[in-house]
């Protein structure tokens, strides 16, 4: 298919997963990601894959654990409350070093909250909502096309590092339709000699597990994990710069918010404001180095989130006090308009470079 089609974000993720060779989907309905499950219900049957509606999110993530442990490319998806329920399972997957993809099309919280778009699960996704020292690779696309490309990338990274990868979207990205170029069918063929497949001639049983009862063994395991996380943080950072050369004010935004920021920046540039956008694409590993670099040239950073301020902590950690870091956020499904962000830019300038 080299022709663009108009596709819903949720469905595009599904199609991308299938293109990436994922044949095992386990999920549970929840707005605003349900279309992904529904799409998989239809498509998996066509490609001889497994779509299984689990009895709960807890069951779904543990099915993923099983399927990943058995050596398959596998995924689950949900939205905020459902992702919270998966935290024990995610910690197990990280501990047992199983590759899988977890999609969070997040919505307003806390609690039942609402079903509108939100970016308030950043902490949960990047710092580990589950227990213990572990990291998910977290990718935050900002268009339906990126949902496709990065879902495929997610499967590759998962296999490469034997690590869970989260694709973090929001209700708007999941629900919107945009033109998208679907990839050709990709055959995944990463060998997984560690997987539980039955001995099949192998003499040593493969064991999938995260228990290390002896403290120094668990410490060694953790050091191994930390080494892996370090490697990932060196090799897999993704970000996008837009007009950052000579920008005085750098807006930092990811996902849906970055699009609004970009529109506002276009407008502001026309009006002579030197504003740029730094968009982290991997939220973990966070693109620390580019911040260090831009902190030399920029005068200030303005972080923009659909939250009370979560990624802004990583921005502050990255900028490390070199330059002021401001924050503007909306919550509960409210999405700022271009005008509103433009207003924030003007405010910065009219305060003489302070917010």
């Amino acid at each position, binding site marked *: 298919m080299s022709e663009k089609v108009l596709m819903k974000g949720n469905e595009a993720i599904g199609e991308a997963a299938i293109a990436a060779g994922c044949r*095992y989907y386990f999920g549970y309905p929840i707005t605003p990601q349900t279309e992904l499950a529904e799409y998989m219900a239809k498509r998996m049957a066509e490609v001889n894959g497994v779509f*299984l509606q689990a009895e709960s999110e807890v069951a779904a993530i543990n*099915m993923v*654990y099983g399927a990943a442990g058995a050596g398959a490319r596998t995924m689950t998806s949900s939205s905020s409350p459902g992702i919270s329920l998966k935290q024990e*399972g995610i910690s197990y997957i990280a501990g047992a070093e199983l590759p899988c993809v977890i999609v969070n099309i997040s919505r307003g919280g806390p609690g039942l909250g609402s079903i509108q778009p939100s970016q308030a699960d950043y902490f949960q996704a990047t710092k580990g909502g589950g227990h213990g020292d572990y990291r998910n690779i977290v990718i935050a696309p900002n268009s339906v096309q990126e949902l496709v490309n990065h879902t495929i990338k997610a499967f590759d990274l998962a296999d490469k590092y034997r690590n869970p990868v989260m694709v973090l979207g929001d209700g708007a990205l999941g629900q919107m339709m945009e033109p998208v170029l679907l990839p050709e069918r990709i055959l995944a063929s990463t060998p997984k000699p560690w997987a*539980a497949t*039955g001995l*099949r001639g192998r003499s040593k049983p493969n064991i999938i597990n995260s228990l290390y009862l002896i403290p120094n063994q668990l410490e060694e395991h953790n050091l191994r994990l930390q080494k892996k996380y370090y490697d990932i943080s060196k090799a897999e950072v993704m970000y996008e710069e837009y007009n950052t050369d000579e920008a005085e004010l750098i807006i930092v935004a990811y996902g849906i918010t970055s699009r609004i920021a970009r529109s506002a920046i276009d407008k502001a540039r026309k009006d002579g404001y030197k504003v740029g956008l730094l968009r982290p694409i991997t939220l973990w590993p966070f693109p620390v180095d580019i911040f260090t670099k831009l902190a030399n040239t920029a005068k200030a950073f303005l972080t923009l989130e659909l939250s009370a301020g979560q990624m802004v902590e990583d921005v502050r950690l990255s900028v490390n006090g070199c330059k002021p870091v401001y924050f503007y956020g909306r919550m509960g499904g409210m999405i700022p308009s271009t005008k509103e962000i433009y207003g924030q830019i003007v405010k910065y300038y009219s305060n003489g470079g302070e917010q």
Partner: protein
Amino acid sequence: MVEKIFTRPKSLTDVPTHYCPGCHHGLVHRLIAEIIDETHLQATTIGIAPVGCSVLAYDYFNFDMVGAAHGRAPAVATGVKRVHPENLVFTYQGDGDIAAIGCAEIVHAAVRGEKISTIFINNAIYGMTGGQMAPTTLISQVTNTTPYGRCAEGTGKPLRLSEMIATIDGAVYVARVAVHDSIHMTKAKQCIKKAFDIQMKGLGFAMVEVLSTCPTNWGMSPLKAVDWMKENMFPQFPLGVLKASEEVLK
């Protein structure tokens, strides 16, 4: 000529277990391993270990194993089985694991008629954590969380999980056995073998409950524990094949 007429099955590794003296977990492990040897399934078996005293089962079984989160073995087994439908996939779960925290997972594995087998070790207590009430704990039984004895008022009566699972269409075979003597052990082995056979024939979900002792947390000698089990558990949890659907009987 000296001939070994009884020895360790190939499907068990040759390591000492961490189980307490007289604990029935070891017996059930051996039965499973013997069946797998006898049916030549060692190369195609994937076992799912629970969280419970048998959490280290993956060290003892000599085939591929996956350690599940507490209660989630049926979900994990589902994931494994869907990827390897031709393999023998079984879960091995304690009563706390399967009947308390993992209640939804076992019910729905049964509902789906998931082609896995579940071996359910009912020792009427949480062994691993040092002896707390399980859903299967008997009325008046003293545990660390029923220090005055389990009382129906407030904690309810013991759950007969197998009877409950037997009401589900997808569960084609449900049996309750014991392993405290050679006659019962033979029957237990038959039932587990049947469960595995059902799976390999693709007939549906099968579960075998094994009544077992936990001498340590019951606070008695292994021999006393067997008596206590017979006296107290057998009436509450009657032995026998609770369900065998038509396909299975054929």
